[in-house]
């Protein structure tokens, strides 16, 4: 029953918010629903922590891994909803483009993402993952500009094709399970598959084939290079709160799906094959995205490529395996989402005040917009992995694992790309912040909704960078235990 | 006795050809909600033309005069190749399908020469277009027949038909379906039917086959018209024999022959209906699109040949 609450609240919230035509009432309803949603998610997490895995029926299940990602969803969606309430204060009524549609679509989006994390059945996982694409497509194309429509179309097309390949992979895994003697009705259930995995490993070809298709398919949603073509466009053209949701939550959900499959395949055929694939994709994504960061001209595209790079880092952490690697990867999903949200919120302020996101038309921000500049500095330092921010901890964990496994090639590439990214961000941000202000923005004061969430995010980054809270660390350990 | 039946088969094909043409014309008229001419009209036309005077352009040479004769002769030879009621025909064991294809080509070649020789602009235009269409149609024609021949392990028509007769109707193989599609397209191109050529057009700029026959009159025109009708009937009969010959007489008895004849009439009727529907339903392709049409036929027949390798594996 507890598991159903988050889903029901999100679903009902979507319909309820749609009914309020007055934007302010709709916003308040949305915030209220958001609060209820976060509360129900916290309850679920707490219950899983107390009592172990919860299961409802055959299709919904919450274990340590799901609850970890649910915390991620809860935290970021809370920040995003609060930020959006202020961001949308100027948007009027339009077909699919008014605040109530925005919030309704956001809640629908949240519903699909929570379902992804709560599904026990790989088929349901697929259905809901496709649902996330559908739910967010209209959000990406929210502003009816040329860029937004093009980005939305590309997003829809590329991700649907990718997900179709993931469906094929799911089918092949189902076939492998049925051939290994599993009951067809249970052959898509994750727990049963984990139990039966050693039997499936007797015919490794099918399982490996399944994993290849799954990593290509869900990897499209994660943003692995070379399937990433939709990501910079979608994250850049979407409204800022949606960019934050996409970068910080959706990519993590897709990674969650890959983690589930990785667990099955590792139990079946040993972890060499899937982890090698993850390492390859991770390294390539990191390198390509890191290099492309240098030549970006749009602030949000810069951050989108940074998301690709960090997804690569998480994949490297997963691919290395081991206790430190897995810990680092899981922690990094959370840390990255907080830092990326902070960055996107600052970018939203920049756009709101300067009217553009082209970095060469903005300068002198430190004088005209001190608070946003501070947020940018904090976010930028965090995202490149410098102490005392939290991303340093998770990246350090992954690097240590790489050292322990004597993978010096990976270590070298990692450090080189980190330096390159640091240089790129420093270059771009210094140009934004320094120099003479070339245009006076209308008002540089932040409204409460904006500075509160940015403050919370920055605080979280600093606190987690100082010391990972014990409770949080325990939750990560529980998540890791699920994957063994 | 067999020879008598073979001669009967050839006569059916040759004499029944104008009737086939008449029925197709009547069906098209019925589909297009017109009255349409009687189905025996082509016979009346042939009789009328035979009575008329044969006018020859002053600049024409002997090629112009003997082209219709060569065309009719080649087409009658082709008709002698095709089995109708039993799995053999007059010439069916004397030559393989290459001979059939190139006999048709011989007739067509002479007709084109005659059209050139006639000296009119439309004749030359029709002849050059016909050259393009027939060049492109040759590949799918041959490849389609090659595919069937590979499966049947026989190169002569009689052998192919015998092999097909022995197959189970319900085991239609991919090769046959693909070969049938491409050969059907080739039949449309070779016999000058829509969508490649409009046999009832009166606009000279759109004519291919009609353009070549434009300068002829009297008995020569009768021979050309008859030859084109025989060509259509023979190719339809070829399609039936290669892809749907079940019901052919296996013994030389009146009853078996009668039944086989009835079945043949039914199959030809089916093909005629199909042809009428296709002709009424499609617009004529513009000339630069005809290579695309025949390109599709070529690809389908190439695929049929490739599939024979897969089947044999």
């Amino acid at each position: 029953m507890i598991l159903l609450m988050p889903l029901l609240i999100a679903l009902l919230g979507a319909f309820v918010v749609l009914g309020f035509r007055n934007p302010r009432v709709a916003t308040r309803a949305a915030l209220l629903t958001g609060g209820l949603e976060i509360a129900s998610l916290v309850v679920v997490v707490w219950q899983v922590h107390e009592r172990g895995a919860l299961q409802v029926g055959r299709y919904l299940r919450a274990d340590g891994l799901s609850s970890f990602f649910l915390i991620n969803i809860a935290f970021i969606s809370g920040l995003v909803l609060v930020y959006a309430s202020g961001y949308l204060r100027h948007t009027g009524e339009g077909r699919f483009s008014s605040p109530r549609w925005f919030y309704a679509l956001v809640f629908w989006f949240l519903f699909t993402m929570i379902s992804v994390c709560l599904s026990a059945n790989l088929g349901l996982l697929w259905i809901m993952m496709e649902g996330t694409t559908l739910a967010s497509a209209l959000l990406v194309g929210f502003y009816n500009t040329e860029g937004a429509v093009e980005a939305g179309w590309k997003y829809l097309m590329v991700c649907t094709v990718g997900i179709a390949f993931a469906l094929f992979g799911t089918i092949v895994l189902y076939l492998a399970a049925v051939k290994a003697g599993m009951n067809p009705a249970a052959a898509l259930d994750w727990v049963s598959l984990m139990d039966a995995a050693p039997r499936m490993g007797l015919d490794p070809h099918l399982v490996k084939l399944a994993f290849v298709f799954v990593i290509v398919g869900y990897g499209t949603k994660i943003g692995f290079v070379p399937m990433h073509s939709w990501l910079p466009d979608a994250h850049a053209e979407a409204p800022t709160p949606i960019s934050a949701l996409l970068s910080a939550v959706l990519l993590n959900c897709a990674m969650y799906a890959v983690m589930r499959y990785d667990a099955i395949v590792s139990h079946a055929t040993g972890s060499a094959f899937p982890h090698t694939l993850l390492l390859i994709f991770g390294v390539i994504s990191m390198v390509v995205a890191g290099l492309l960061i240098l030549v970006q001209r749009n602030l949000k595209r810069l951050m989108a490529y940074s998301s690709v790079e960090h997804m690569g880092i998480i994949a490297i952490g997963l691919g290395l395996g081991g206790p430190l690697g897995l810990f680092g990867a899981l922690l990094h999903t959370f840390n990255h989402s907080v830092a990326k949200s902070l960055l996107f919120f600052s970018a939203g302020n920049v756009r709101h005040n300067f009217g553009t996101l082209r970095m060469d038309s903005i300068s002198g921000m430190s004088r005209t917009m001190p608070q946003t500049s501070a947020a940018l500095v904090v976010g930028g330092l965090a995202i490149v992995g410098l102490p005392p921010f939290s991303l340093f901890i998770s990246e350090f964990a992954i690097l240590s694992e790489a050292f322990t496994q004597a993978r010096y090639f990976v270590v070298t590439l990692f450090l080189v790309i980190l330096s390159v990214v640091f240089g790129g961000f420093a270059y771009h941000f210094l140009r934004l912040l320094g120099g003479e202000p070339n245009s006076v923005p209308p008002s540089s004061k932040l409204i409460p909704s904006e500075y509160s969430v940015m403050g919370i995010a920055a605080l979280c980054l600093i606190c987690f960078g100082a010391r990972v809270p014990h409770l949080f660390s325990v939750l990560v350990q529980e998540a890791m235990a699920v994957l063994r | 006795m067999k020879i008598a039946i073979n001669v009967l088969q050839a006569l059916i094909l040759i004499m029944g050809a104008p009737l086939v043409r008449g029925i197709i014309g009547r069906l098209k008229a019925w589909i297009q909600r017109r009255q349409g001419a009687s189905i025996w009209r082509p016979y009346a036309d042939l009789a009328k033309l035979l009575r008329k005077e044969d006018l020859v352009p002053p600049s024409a040479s002997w090629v112009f005069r003997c082209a219709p004769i060569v065309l009719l002769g080649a087409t009658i030879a082709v008709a002698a190749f095709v089995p109708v009621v039993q799995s053999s025909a007059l010439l069916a064991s004397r030559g393989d399908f290459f001979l059939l294809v190139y006999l048709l080509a011989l007739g067509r070649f002479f007709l084109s020469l005659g059209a050139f020789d006639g000296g009119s602009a439309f004749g030359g235009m029709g002849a050059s277009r016909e050259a393009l269409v027939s060049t492109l149609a040759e590949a799918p024609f041959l490849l389609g027949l090659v595919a069937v021949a590979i499966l049947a392990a026989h190169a002569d028509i009689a052998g192919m038909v015998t092999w097909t007769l022995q197959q189970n109707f319900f085991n239609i193989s991919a090769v046959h379906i693909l070969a049938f599609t491409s050969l059907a397209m080739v039949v449309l191109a070779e016999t000058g039917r829509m969508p490649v050529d409009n046999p009832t057009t009166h606009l000279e700029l759109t004519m291919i086959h009609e353009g070549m026959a434009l300068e002829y009159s009297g008995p020569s025109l009768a021979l050309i018209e008859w030859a084109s009708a025989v060509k259509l009937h023979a190719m339809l009969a070829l399609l039936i024999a290669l892809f749907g010959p079940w019901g052919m007489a296996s013994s030389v008895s009146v009853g078996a022959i009668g039944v086989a004849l009835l079945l043949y009439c039914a199959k030809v009727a089916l093909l005629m209906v199909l042809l009428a529907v296709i002709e009424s339903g499609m617009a004529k392709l513009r000339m630069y699109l005809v290579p695309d049409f025949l390109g599709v036929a070529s690809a389908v027949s190439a695929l049929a040949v490739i599939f024979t390798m897969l089947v044999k594996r």
Partner: protein
Amino acid sequence: MGLVEIATGKVLSSFSVFLFLTILLMVVARRISTSVLLFSVQSAIIAAEVFATGFRERLAEAYVVGALVLVIKVVFIPRAFFRLVDRLKTPRDVKASTTPTQSVFIAAALIYLSYAAVHSYGQSVHVPEDALAASVALILTGAFLMVSRNKALMQMLGLLVLENGIFLAALTTTFGMPLVIEIGVFFDVLMGLLLMGIFTFRIRDTFDHLDVSKLRRLRG
């Protein structure tokens, strides 16, 4: 019911050939409506295959799935497409970047490729080679259509053909997945098409054309 037995036997043994024919004809079609009709025929063939499988394997679920395929893919989606073409008031030609002759040869090469791929993998899985090759060919053709057709509507159709191929692969290897999952997949496809339809309207309104090859503002 000897006739039904024969019919199912025939459907199961030779349907893949007709699928190849629809593939070849679809890549040369010059009008959107022709392509949509061919897709409808394709889906009808697949629905027949589903029914035949259900009859032979005595699976009640297969009949439900077959009925769903029939209703959704043979009737509903093509009709939606036709209505979309009408309301978009766009020129009805398929903006192909390859000529019909090139397209059909590429399609023939893809069919051969799918046979080659299936032959090497099909040994471990005991399925009729034809059916699996047909599904792989459908997937490859769907991808080819998406890449070579410049109209947004044709890209949607390519996606549908791709999904048909995946569905057929599932059908031939595992006789279909659990019913709930199949229904969910159908629902997703429908929703996806709905959204893509909305987006084509937006593209048309913003750009005044439906040529996706001209959507190249965002680069780098």
